[in-house]
Every structure is written in C-alpha cells, then in structure tokens.
C-alpha cells in the first residue's frame, strides 16, 4: 500500500518531462512501465514526492527499434515484450531478445521497459550484463536539449545507481551492429523458479575467424556484485586462441578470481554466487561459441 501522497504529472513531450525533472529535483521520479518503481513504493522502500509519467509522451518518440548503417537503436520506452519479439533485434542482437525473454512473466514484460529496467539498475537486473557485453551506449537528454552518450560499462555505477544526472532522461540505447556470421552470444540466467530474480546472469559474446580461432570473447556477469562484473581477462587472454573445453575451464578460473566480494542474501551465499558465476560464465561461453560456429546461420 502506498501511504505517502505524491503529485502526478503526465508530460506530453520529452522536453516537458525533463523540465519537470529539473523543476522538482531529487524528490521526483520518472515512471515508465512501473514494474520496478511501483513494487518499491508498495513496500515503502521508495516514496517519491512527484511522479512523472512518461507513458503519455507520443509513443514513437521513445518506443521504437531502428537500424542505421552501424547501429541498432532501441527507444528507452520499448517494452521487454517488444525487445523479445522485434525481428531487427533478433537479427542484429539476439542476446537482447534472449534476455528479455527471461524477465519475470508475460504481464511484467508487457508493461516493463528496457529503459526503466536499466535506470533502476538493480544488480540482479537482466539487461545489465548483456548490454555491457555488446558495448551498448546510452543516450540521455537534459533540459537544455543537450544529448550525452554514456557507455554501458560506465552507465551502471552501483546498486540502484546510474551515471545519469538528476535532470537527464534516458532516450535511447544503441548497440553496434556486427557481422552476422562467426559471431555468437548467449545470456544464461540462474534462477530458482521461473520469473525469479537472477542469482547470477551471465552474458557471453564470442567472435571467431574463419579458422575457428577466437577474435573476441567477453563475459559479463550480473547479480554477483553491486554492478555488472566485466571479466576483462577473458577478453585479453583468448584473442588468437582456439576456444576448446580446456580454454573454457581456464575462463572459469579467471571468472572465479574476477569476482571480488560477491553479494550475499537469503537466496545465495557469497561463496555460492561466486561459484555460480563460474558455472554460468562457462555455460554462456559454451553456448555463444557453439552459436558462433554455426556457419551461414545468423547467431550473433
């Protein structure tokens, strides 16, 4: 039950929304699909004084999937369902569709948005790891209509904390397009029941050359730490290597060392989380690798 009253605004445009943000300062909160904020308000963990509802802004100005020569562009108000089902995303960034599919349940996916989810920055949020893994960029706008671009790696600062300034609104997420062959990616999530929080979410992105030798291999983990854990060693160590099962075991060892001070809660101890980071990193790598080797098919 929400027991703190709040003022409600329904701006019709992006500029109106950011002006409201500026005007009301830190007590104001943007709401998109409401799938993170509303539960927090119901639990009394969030009590914004002003709610700025973005759902009345002209739909196609924040909810879209577009392509240009280099990038895939996803509007911040695009729902998880739309991310899951978009043919362009499936074709050019399969890992994001795969990730959206694992979020909560159909009702949540129909209302919740990719922008809302990343701005919430829950360490167990599903998009965090894959967006860092695919080198996504976040575009934000402020009341002076100044657009700022933030890399995914810099965007997630801490638990429930992003690099957005108080008067900035996330408008778009851009993902670089990659060649459609010899690229493979996968998001694998450890959860206890369907729709449950990610104990660990592992995203792997792999590119191989025509001889099957690794050009690029990256693993990012969510759920284990206060922000996504990017396992840089894997990127460095495996370039020019043949990614066999021995190499994947080695990757697991690198992940184990890379996870410092893992989160601990009622679902999973720190030790368990670290070990699951290893297990699911390896699973994600294996799957990404298998997909990269399926020649002819598009599995990036």
């Amino acid at each position, binding site marked *: 039950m929400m027991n703190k009253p709040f003022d409600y605004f329904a701006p019709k445009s992006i500029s109106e929304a950011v002006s409201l943000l500026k005007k009301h300062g830190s007590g104001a909160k943007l709401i998109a699909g409401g799938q993170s904020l509303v539960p927090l308000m119901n639990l009394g963990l969030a009590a914004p004084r002003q709610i700025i509802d973005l759902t009345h802004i002209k739909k196609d100005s924040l909810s879209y999937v577009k392509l240009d020569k280099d990038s895939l562009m996803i509007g911040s108000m695009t729902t998880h369902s739309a991310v899951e089902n978009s043919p362009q995303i499936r074709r050019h960034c399969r890992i994001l569709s795969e990730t959206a599919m694992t979020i909560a349940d159909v009702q949540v996916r129909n209302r919740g948005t990719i922008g809302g989810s990343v701005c919430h920055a829950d360490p167990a949020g599903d998009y965090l790891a894959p967006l860092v893994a695919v080198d996504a960029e976040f575009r934000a706008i402020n009341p002076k209509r100044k657009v700022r671009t933030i890399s995914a790696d810099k965007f997630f600062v801490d638990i429930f904390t992003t690099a957005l300034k108080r008067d900035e609104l996330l408008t778009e997420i851009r993902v670089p397009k990659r060649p459609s062959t010899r690229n493979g990616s996968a998001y694998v999530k450890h959860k206890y029941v*369907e729709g449950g929080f990610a104990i660990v979410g592992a995203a792997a992105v792999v590119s191989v050359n025509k001889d099957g030798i690794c050009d690029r291999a990256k693993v990012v983990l969510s759920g284990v730490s206060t922000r996504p854990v990017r396992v840089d060693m894997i990127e460095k160590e495996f370039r020019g290597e043949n990614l066999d099962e021995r190499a994947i075991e080695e990757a697991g060892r690198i992940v184990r060392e890379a996870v410092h001070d893992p989160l601990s809660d009622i679902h999973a101890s720190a030790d368990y989380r670290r070990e699951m980071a290893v297990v699911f990193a390896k699973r994600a790598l294996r799957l990404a690798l298998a997909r990269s080797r399926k020649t002819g098919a598009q599995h990036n």
Partner: protein
Amino acid sequence: MTLYATTQQPHPLRTTLAAALSMPENSIRVIQPDVGGAFGVKTPPFQEEILLALLSVVTKRPVKWVEERRENFLAGGHAREMVHHFEVAFKKDGRVIGLKEKMIADTGAPSPLIGWGMAFVGALHIPGVYKIESVDVESSMVVTNKAPWNAYRGYGKENSNLLMERCMDMVARKLGMSPIDVRLKNFVQPHEFPFKQISGQVLDSGDYPTVLNRLLQMSQYDKLREERARLRKQGKYVGIGVAFEVAPGGACLPDSYITGYDGTTVRVAPTRQVTVLTGITSPGTGNETMIAQVVADELGIEIGDVSVVQGDTDKCPYGLGNFSDRSTIVGASSAMLAARDIREKVLKVAGSMLEASPDDLDVEESKISVKGVPSKFLKFSDVAQAIYRRPYDCAIDIEPGLEATRYFRTPNATHIPDEQGRISTYPSYPNMAHLAFVEVDIETGEVKILKYAAVHDCGYIMNPMMVEGQLHGGIVQGIGGALYEHLVYDDAGQLLTTTFMDYPIPTSMEVPKIEAANHETRSPFTPYGTKGVGESGPVGAPAVLISAVEDALSTLGVKITELPLKPNRVWELIKEAKKVKVSP
C-alpha cells in the same frame, strides 16, 4: 452488524464476535464470499476481524480493511519449523520394533491462531501407517519471537509423515533392503482395519500394500530403475524416491469448534427447484458441486435444479465450515440425510397419488414412476406442488412442507479416554503412495523433477475430476515446501521474506506432469464410504523428494536432514560430501 470475512468458519467466527463484543449472537451476520488461498490459515478468527467489527459499531459506518501480502507474510501465521531427534530399533528382516522420538516445534509467539495444535497432531500421528510395538514420543513446543504458527494444509501430519518415511528409508539403507520391501513389512495390513494405533488413533480403512504396488506398476518402477542406471552411466545424478503418505482428515478435537459434525437443509420449492443450505463452506475446492450432486442423486432430479448456498450465518444451519477434508466426510453425509428425508416424503405422497406403495416407486430424471410400469408416473414437481397445495387429501399423512435439516456426526471418534488415557480424534485416513524421479544438477544444486506419480485412496470418489485437481494442487504445494518455500528471519528477528519474489513458490515450469490414479477402499464409517482428499499431497511430497534427492546423490553419500532443498543448500551438501570423499 454484518461482517464480510475471508474465513473458513463463518459460524464460529460469529460466536467469537458475539463473545468479544458482548453483542447478542443473533444480531450479527457473517458472510463469507468466495474465498481462495485459505489452506487452513483462514480457519481461526483473526484479531482484525474483531477490531473491524468494533470500529464499525463505534463509528456506525461501514469499515473495510484489506490485508497486504507483506502483512500476511508477517502475521498471517507460519508453520512447520520443527526438529526431530529419533532412534529406530529394527530386526534383520526389516521389521521396525521400536521408535524413540523427541520433537521440538518453534511455534512462534503465543496467539489465538490455532497453529500450535500442529505440534500435538503431528505427535499423535506417529507411527502413521506402520505397526510398531513400542513407541516413545516427546513433543515440545517452544515459544519464540517469530510469527505465531497458524493452521496450514497438512496440519502437522506432514511432520510425522516425514519422520516415519525417513525411518523406513534409513532402515532400508542400513539393511541393504529395498525401501519398498521395508514398507511392505511394516504396514498395517488390509484385514486389520479398523486398526487402533499405539497412539490411540483408529485408522478407519485402507489397503496400503495394494496402493503402493499399483504405484510401482503405474510408474513402471522396474523400467525406471533401468533408466536411472542408463543416465548414471552418462554421468548424470538421477534418483528415485518412493514414499507413503497418510493424511488424516475430519478432525474432531475435544471441546472445540474443530469437530466432527455438520448440518444441511434441503428445501424444495413447489415448482421443484431445490435450495440446499449447508454449514460446510468452500475454500474454492468446488465442494458445492459435490453437495449438489448428492442432493440431485438422492432425489432423482436434475443437478441443474439444485442450488447450493454456503457461507452465510443468516441462511445456513450452524456449521463448522471448511477444514481437514470434512466436506466429503460430514458435508456430503448430512446432505444425504436431509435429501433422504425429503425423498421419503415425496415417495409417500406420490404413492398415495399413484395408488401404489412407496416401496414400489422409482425416482429418476425428475419423475416418480411405478416400478415396471414406466407409463404410470408423476413429475417431481407434481408431487412437490401437491405437498404444498393438498395438505388435506393426498398429503394428509405427512407433516406439511418440503424441507429438512439434518446433522451428521462421524461415529468413529472418541473423546472419552480409554484405559491408557487415549482418545481418537481423526475419523478418516486417506492415504497415498508417491514416486519421484529427479535429477540433481551437480554444479548448481538444482533439483529437477523428471517424473512424479501417485496413487491415492480417498474411499468412494464422488467427483473424479475434482479429486484429481486436489491431488495435483496438493502435490505441487508439497513440492513447494520441499524445494523452495522458506520463511527466513535475520539475527534480529526481522522477517526477510515478505514478497513472492523472496519466497518462491513453484510455477508450472518447475512442476512436471503429475500422473495420479486412485484406488478405492471405502470407509465403513461414512454413508457413501468417502474419506477425504483436501490435505493429500503436501503431507507426502517432502518425504518422496528427500528420498529421491538422496538417491540421486547416493554415490557421494549425501544425507539430507533438513528442508527446503534450495539449490544453495544442496550445493553445500554436495561440496561437503565431496570434501569427505577426497579426505577419508
């Protein structure tokens, strides 16, 4: 004053309100609208119900209160936290001859909720379906600063059941015997019913060996063992568990409103439609359909002509609502008695109208006809109208009106202590054999149920579809308790699990297809031979899952002594076992 309450006991709630508020009981009306998610928790009166009524009386205005999920988690009542220390004595052939058990229940804060009784009822149902000459049980309840216990499906019997099934598995392992054979050796045998257990409880009926053997046939147990061997060769950790369950029903606790009777009124209108007012209530299980079936069948009329009214203290006879499987035990039986009174009157009047003896009449499809002369008949409505319109001719031999209220009391409970001071509080012993085939992910500790099969005995089955639905729901609830559900407190006594994200329950994705079948052994103590089905499933599922997971991890020597089997915990058990293996 009218109180709309999500309760399982509208009449006792009215009685409590009258006492608490010093109001005449007949000035209070309690209405129970459609209720779900009860599972026992809504049996006792809640403080909030009394406070709401008081607020309404004081303010002379309607007052409404909606409980939040978080509040329900915090204060709606907890259950099941119990520690067992036990020793078993057995012979080389697998017969168990002695059991010593010390059980300690953390029943939380003292409260007017009725959960503490679960520790007592659990103790009472040792040794369950097994014959053990010598049993010593010590049951302690410890009051703590956690949420108080409240009634929850299983009502303590899941604890005693788990204990007994663990005993059987441990004896089997110690002797290198099949766990099936150990159970068959120790079962109360079919010819021994009614069987007075060492605790004083009297098991009404059953055929445990047949129920267990049917399960083994149905689930192709031998083939499953081959499958297990095949998968193990591939490096998989798979295991089979078999467990037996007895889920005593129809509770009759001394000097309480949790007891063994209920009442039904059958009221026939001159135009033939029948209204049934019953003291049992439905928590969403569909027992109103079953009551309508009973009345329609007894009167030989269409079920569409019967409407059932429940959960209204101004309309229904004083009854005890819904708990402990009682709707098929006392609800159906009292409806039958009332319907038979009506039938007798209808036949008497029809007999005089058709100039035939009532014994020579048939009632079917809303027609009363002379046996062997189908053309000579009256419509049910003709007779109903005659009873109301012709009290001085064809209906002169009966008392006017076409309405009957009857109560049924289960005959096989005793509250007068026997020579050893024992009473018998449960009249009905539905039972079930469970089988689970599971795979444990050795890396993550996740338990996946590959197959689940069960054979149940609830006596005479009144509605097969509803029985099957109950079994599925009950088993899933048992799976939840065994694998996922855990109310976690921090060191300062704060409850940490106050949402369904933090307190996971199984979804359709975690639950396999459940194969359920029935074996009927009718109870000699209910008119139709019915037993119960409402608590079946959660009582036995924990035992079968522990057994299957232990079997899956048997090469590592993992022993499981606590629930739930959340992945983190199973992973720890695997890790500990591997450590022991490496450094013997």
